[in-house]
């Protein structure tokens, strides 16, 4: 409507002005009214003279203005309503100039000028580079957009290279005159591969078994054991959860709990444990709800998998719901782009991608898929994400039976309630009336409004400061002479401003009652109000019938009398006015009913998407603004650079008219000739074993990403991955058994000179453990690790998490994977060890070095306990100091100490100052653990054990514990 009016206004302006314009080509108008404004307010940021083109926009020549900036043309001659500059000047989209809106007259002149054709004499070319446009030919040749080559494995004459991947590595090393580091010791490899595959240190038993295993396939057997372990899914599931920005609360603005998030986590763990082929894994997470299911169990699994799309953070309290939806789609698209394609698609939300050949049109064409997907249950305040019931015939039958029984009970109790209530209301009304009569009988001038009924221990009080009565009390305090007049004024609807915004039905009603007979004194005022109230009450009590709930009028009256802001305050227990036998019977039935309610069989739900009711296509949003569109809604399609047009052998999907097209998109992702999907995933697997991927920017294979260190190896691995049926476990097996993986970390200055970052892998990388294996190892060393897998997180923590509160349950014995991830109040432990923000897809954990890490290992109860418990085990197992040291080393470092280390240990034990404060037992216990050290002096007086405790603590502090070689 507004636009329509503006168009009319414009046409009028247009027709008037055209006659004037004939005399001139319009440039005079431009020179007089437009140019000065542009110079004064715009050139500073949008001109060659200033050397700036903010938003890609220059306003200092006609052509640059017509061409526009990142968001498109800034003006359309003759059409102010289509001209972005008008929106900007009117502060309707972007607000320009930022220093303050121009006055209306100036803005009108711009409108005139554009209407009349936007004459503009400024033709000089400034020589500034034009807005860069995508060079499609060049883009097509970029390695990541070309299907993987059919690579020939290089022939290498060297015994070291035992597998094809070693041959690639060796060939490249040889080119640089580098040679591979020697093989790591068995214990080093075992600790490395154990942490890599299951996230736990090897037990001393496993260490001994492997060290003494004479079989040729000892290494293979270890790998088989680890890949069979259910803990494998916990470790690699966690890697995936990083990518999937998994969390157990929403974070963002309203940190609501995700009660069902754990189902998605368990799904991921199980998917890895069962080695779900990666292509299938993608289909399930993007479109599980659209895949056929052979059983209910499979349907449940497939629905749960789509939690991937729901689990991101959302601004649930955003009032602009269009923005909320646009942001959710963006979050999904950005995540999908990074995770599966290794492309930063999100960059194209506001403009064509600055570096990659991804246009804003590509982005919005893809966005149609997610706009046509239902991610939210509703968009009310506060909005709610989608959860879907997981089908289960047995539970459904149980529930059905229950509901029938429940409904019957409910009806009975309700009938009893209504009956009792009606009875009570009558009693109460009578009581009130008689009380009031006796109140009137006392000729008391004071304003005390309380009336008490000793008999029933009930106090009835007029609430003088309630919203309804306050104005009247204020009036009552006026001098007698002014009172009547003031009351009159109050009731004149013409002058009474306040009645325009009455707050409640109560207030309305009180005004109404009093208005019929305006009181003349304060006491009279109270009398009138209370008399009216008791009258109303009686009426209410008799009106109460079977339709109690349905009758809105009665509900209002109820609220009025009992509600929060009621003018009458009745202190009473429910049922207080009933005869005791009636009251007790009712109470018993209600209690019984409430117990029954608690027994309702639960219906399992999962965070999951559904198809939207309608397919919704979207147009390009100008500068990402969800209120401003350029052109028509775009049909869904994949980005141009990945389309058939550029990659002949990769057919572009045909999106269905009646559905979101998620399944077609997912299937396109996993087409054998897709240039990105397999490469991106094998690179992630590689990163999990070497600390760095072959492409060091694992979620960005675009032009600003890193080039692959071994492009041919990457392609070979991608092809091999598909040949192995997209089996992730097969990739692990091949990698961890390779000579490359089995190299030691060594110090080699010459090699370091040539390849300081070890991109060519002349040695294995030394890696710091992530937060989860650090904590899990501490639990394992402390001997209290709970090996149970999966389950709801309340069960894991035993606590309900207050959405706003800080939360910590580090002392739980559960593996760290199962600790709730509270986005808004993430435990300090996680961020200390570089798991900083679960709100966005995380491609790689950094490994910073901050003092809080040492403080944690030195002082936190968890590490306190680990050191203490290990010392207990070591000292009770043997009297031999040498064996004690060996045992401690096996537990903490997964190896046995050399003579020098044993000698040093013995020195420490002998010299350690004991007993320490700890042994002296004076201070507090280690919180949250049951066997938490010295509770009393007699339990822990042994100064020798004390020395071992402090020795074990020192081992945990040293670097070797935190790093894997």
């Amino acid at each position, binding site marked *: 409507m507004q636009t329509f009016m503006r168009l009319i206004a414009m046409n009028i302006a247009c027709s008037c002005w055209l006659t004037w314009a004939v005399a001139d080509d319009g440039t005079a108008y431009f020179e007089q009214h437009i140019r000065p404004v542009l110079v004064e307010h715009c050139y500073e940021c949008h001109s060659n003279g200033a050397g700036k083109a903010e938003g890609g926009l220059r306003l200092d020549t006609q052509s640059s203005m017509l061409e526009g900036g990142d968001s498109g043309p800034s003006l359309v001659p003759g059409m102010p309503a289509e001209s972005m500059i008008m929106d900007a000047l009117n502060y309707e989209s972007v607000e320009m100039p930022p220093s303050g809106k121009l006055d209306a007259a100036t803005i009108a002149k711009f409108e005139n000028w554009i209407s009349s054709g936007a004459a503009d004499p400024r033709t000089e070319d400034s020589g500034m580079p034009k807005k860069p446009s995508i060079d499609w030919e060049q883009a097509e040749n970029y390695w990541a957009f070309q299907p993987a080559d059919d690579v020939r494995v290089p022939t290498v004459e060297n015994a070291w290279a035992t597998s094809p991947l070693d041959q690639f590595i060796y060939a490249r090393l040889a080119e640089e005159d580098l040679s591979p580091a020697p093989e790591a010791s068995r214990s080093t490899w075992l600790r490395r591969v154990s942490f890599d595959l299951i996230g736990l240190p090897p037990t001393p038993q496993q260490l001994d078994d492997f060290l003494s295993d004479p079989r040729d396939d000892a290494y293979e057997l270890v790998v088989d054991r680890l890949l069979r372990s259910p803990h494998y899914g916990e470790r690699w599931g966690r890697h995936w959860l990083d990518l999937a920005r998994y969390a157990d609360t929403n974070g963002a603005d309203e940190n609501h709990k995700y009660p069902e998030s754990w189902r998605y986590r368990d799904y991921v763990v199980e998917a890895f444990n069962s080695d779900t082929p990666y292509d299938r894994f993608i289909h399930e997470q993007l479109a599980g709800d659209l895949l056929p299911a052979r059983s209910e169990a499979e349907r449940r699994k497939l629905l749960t998998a789509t939690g991937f799309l729901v689990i991101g953070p959302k601004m649930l309290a955003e009032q602009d719901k269009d923005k909320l939806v646009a942001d959710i789609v963006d979050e999904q698209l950005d995540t999908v782009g990074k995770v599966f394609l290794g492309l930063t698609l999100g960059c194209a939300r506001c403009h064509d991608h600055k570096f990659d050949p991804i246009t804003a049109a590509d982005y919005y064409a893809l966005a149609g898929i997610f706009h046509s997907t239902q991610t939210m249950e509703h968009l009310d305040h506060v909005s709610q994400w989608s959860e879907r019931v997981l089908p289960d015939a047995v539970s459904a039958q149980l529930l059905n039976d229950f509901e029938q029984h429940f409904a019957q009970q409910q009806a009975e109790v309700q009938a009893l309630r209504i009956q009792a209530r009606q009875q009570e209301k009558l009693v109460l009304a009578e009581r009130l009336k008689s009380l009031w009569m006796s109140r009137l009988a006392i000729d008391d001038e004071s304003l005390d409004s309380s009336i008490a009924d000793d008999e029933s221990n009930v106090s009835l009080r007029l609430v003088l400061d309630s919203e309804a009565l306050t104005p009247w009390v204020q009036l009552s305090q006026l001098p007698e002479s002014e009172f009547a007049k003031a009351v009159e004024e109050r009731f004149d609807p013409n002058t009474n401003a306040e009645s325009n915004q009455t707050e409640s039905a109560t207030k309305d009603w009180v005004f109404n009652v009093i208005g019929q007979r305006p009181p003349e004194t304060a006491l009279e005022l109270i009398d009138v109000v209370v008399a009216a109230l008791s009258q109303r009450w009686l009426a209410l009590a008799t009106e109460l019938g079977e339709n109690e709930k349905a009758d809105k009028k009665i509900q209002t009256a109820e609220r009025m009398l009992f509600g929060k802001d009621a003018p009458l305050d009745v202190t009473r227990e429910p049922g207080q006015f009933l005869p005791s036998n009636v009251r007790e019977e009712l109470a018993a039935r209600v209690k019984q009913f409430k117990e029954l309610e608690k027994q309702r069989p639960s219906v399992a739900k999962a965070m999951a998407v559904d198809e939207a009711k309608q397919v919704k296509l979207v147009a390009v949003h100008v500068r990402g603004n969800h209120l401003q569109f350029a052109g028509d809604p775009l049909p869904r399609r994949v980005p141009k650079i990945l389309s058939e047009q550029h990659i002949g052998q990769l057919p572009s999907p045909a999106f269905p008219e009646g559905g979101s097209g998620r399944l077609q998109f997912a299937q396109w992702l996993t087409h054998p000739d897709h240039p990105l999907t397999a490469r991106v995933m094998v690179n992630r697997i590689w990163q999990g074993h070497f600390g760095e991927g072959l492409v060091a920017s694992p979620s960005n294979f675009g032009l600003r990403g890193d080039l692959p260190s071994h492009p041919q190896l990457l392609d070979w691995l991608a092809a091999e991955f598909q040949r192995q049926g997209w089996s992730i476990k097969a990739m692990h097996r091949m990698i961890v058994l390779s000579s490359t993986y089995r190299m030691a970390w060594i110090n080699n200055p010459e090699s370091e000179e040539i390849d300081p*970052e070890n991109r060519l892998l002349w040695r294995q990388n030394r890696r710091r453990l992530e937060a989860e294996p650090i904590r899990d190892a501490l639990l394992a060393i402390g001997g209290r690790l709970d090996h149970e897998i999966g389950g709801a997180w309340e069960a894991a923590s035993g606590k309900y998490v207050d959405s706003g509160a800080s939360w910590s349950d580090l002392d739980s014995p559960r593996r760290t994977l199962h600790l709730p991830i509270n986005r808004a109040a993430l435990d300090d432990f996680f*961020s200390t060890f570089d798991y900083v923000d679960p709100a966005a897809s995380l491609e790689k954990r950094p490994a910073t070095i901050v003092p809080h890490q040492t403080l*944690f290992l030195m002082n936190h109860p968890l590490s306190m306990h680990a050191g203490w418990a290990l010392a207990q085990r070591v000292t009770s197992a043997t009297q031999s100091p040498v064996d004690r040291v060996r045992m401690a080393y096996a537990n903490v470092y997964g190896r046995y100490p050399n003579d020098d280390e044993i000698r040093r240990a013995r020195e420490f034990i002998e010299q350690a100052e004991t007993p320490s404060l700890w042994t002296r037992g004076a201070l507090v216990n280690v919180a949250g653990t049951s066997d938490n050290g010295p509770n009393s002096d007699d339990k822990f007086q042994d100064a020798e054990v004390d020395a071992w405790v402090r020795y074990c603590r020192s*081992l945990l*502090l040293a670097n070797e514990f935190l790093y894997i070689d």
Partner: protein
Amino acid sequence: MHHPSQTSCSRRQVLKRSAMGFGALALADMLYHTLPAARGNEPKTHFPMRAKRVIFLFMHGGPSHVDTFDYKPLLARDNGKPLPFDKPRVQFAETGNLLQSPWKFRQYGQSGAWVSDLFPHVGNCADNICFIKSMHGSNEAHGGALLKMHTGSDTFVRPSMGAWISYGLGNENQNLPSFVTIRPTMGHGGVRNFGSAFLPAEHQATRIGTNRGPMSEATIENLKNPKLDYRELRQELDYAQGLNHLQLDHQGHDAVLESRIQSMELAFRMQTEAPEIMDLSQETTATHRMYGIDDPRTENFGRECLLARRLSEAGVRFVQASHSYWDQHSELKEKHTALAAEVDKPIAGLLQDLKARGLLDETLVIWGAEFGRTPTAQGNNGRDHNPHAFTYWMAGGGVKAGYSHGASDDYGYYAQHDRVHVHDFHATLLYLLGLDHERLTYRYGGRDFRLTDIAGQVVNGIIA
């Protein structure tokens, strides 16, 4: 990466510097120890540093600007009348007609600044204060607005401003973190409001308590060992360091392990130094009184302010002290009265104290919230959220004293003259610290990021 001072220690950077070896790092460590005071490491900046440190007093919930520092006589005149222009397209809640401020305003000092009776003590400091009355943001809900104010984005995960400042300027005191937040809220974005996002983790804030517990019990996690004293801890640490050196001797030098050896020493020093700084009992009774710590009403925030001063004095770059919860959709009169009484005296005490110690010139004190409140009434004693106009004030390092910048409209609904967007505020904050918001960038995921994203203009008008 355009980064004026080299402080971070990512693996890659360490590797690039690995030629230095252990000796150089050890030398650097010795240098820290020989500094007479902990403070004094001047970073290389883009511009001259007008302020070295920031203390941000954050009023969570959104105090009403028209009831505190943005005096609107017309609001009183037109009380009860409808707002004479349109309300914004998106509102948090429905509001009614104009509601006059329940508080009187009076002028203070030579500058004649109008301050309401909610802030008499701060009013007395008006000649040191630079008001910005034309702030505006873009999000009308707490969470979004908090994130916008703290990170510059209510859409994406971004580092907080304190993290950016830590990244840009580094530590002034090597024994303390460069960014500390005192009693923050854990809701409305929670840790993201003081997180480092993709910046190295060392730039995230060290948190002292949360808004749930009393300040007297707030502390840094894991700072104190529950069972062992410093001497005993030192003994364990020495042994562990011995093992670290043994590993280096055995396997050859490794810059990463060497960095961790340093970091362990820093942890130990922090463990001894931080409790001392956090021990407010070292201050005189007069100082306690100045901050209102002797009065139960002002004790909590008084402690926050005094600790903020001590941390800042010791060289922490960015200290945020938070106070909750100014969200008066109703009970405006009662609750704003109570909340202002909790902070007014401590804030004034902080300003006076900094001035008396000669620190105000190099410390930038900022007061503000996620948004202001509507001049129109919610109910008859409340106001709704208003991101379209609100007031911030600054005092100290580099800003004009006794000055007022910008204006909202006649009623305080929209910022009108010399508007200052949250991005502009961030740009100006960085400028005062000597940092160019367009050049303080970090390369992540293939692109350079900055606190002000693609916006922000330095507000030259407030710079002294």
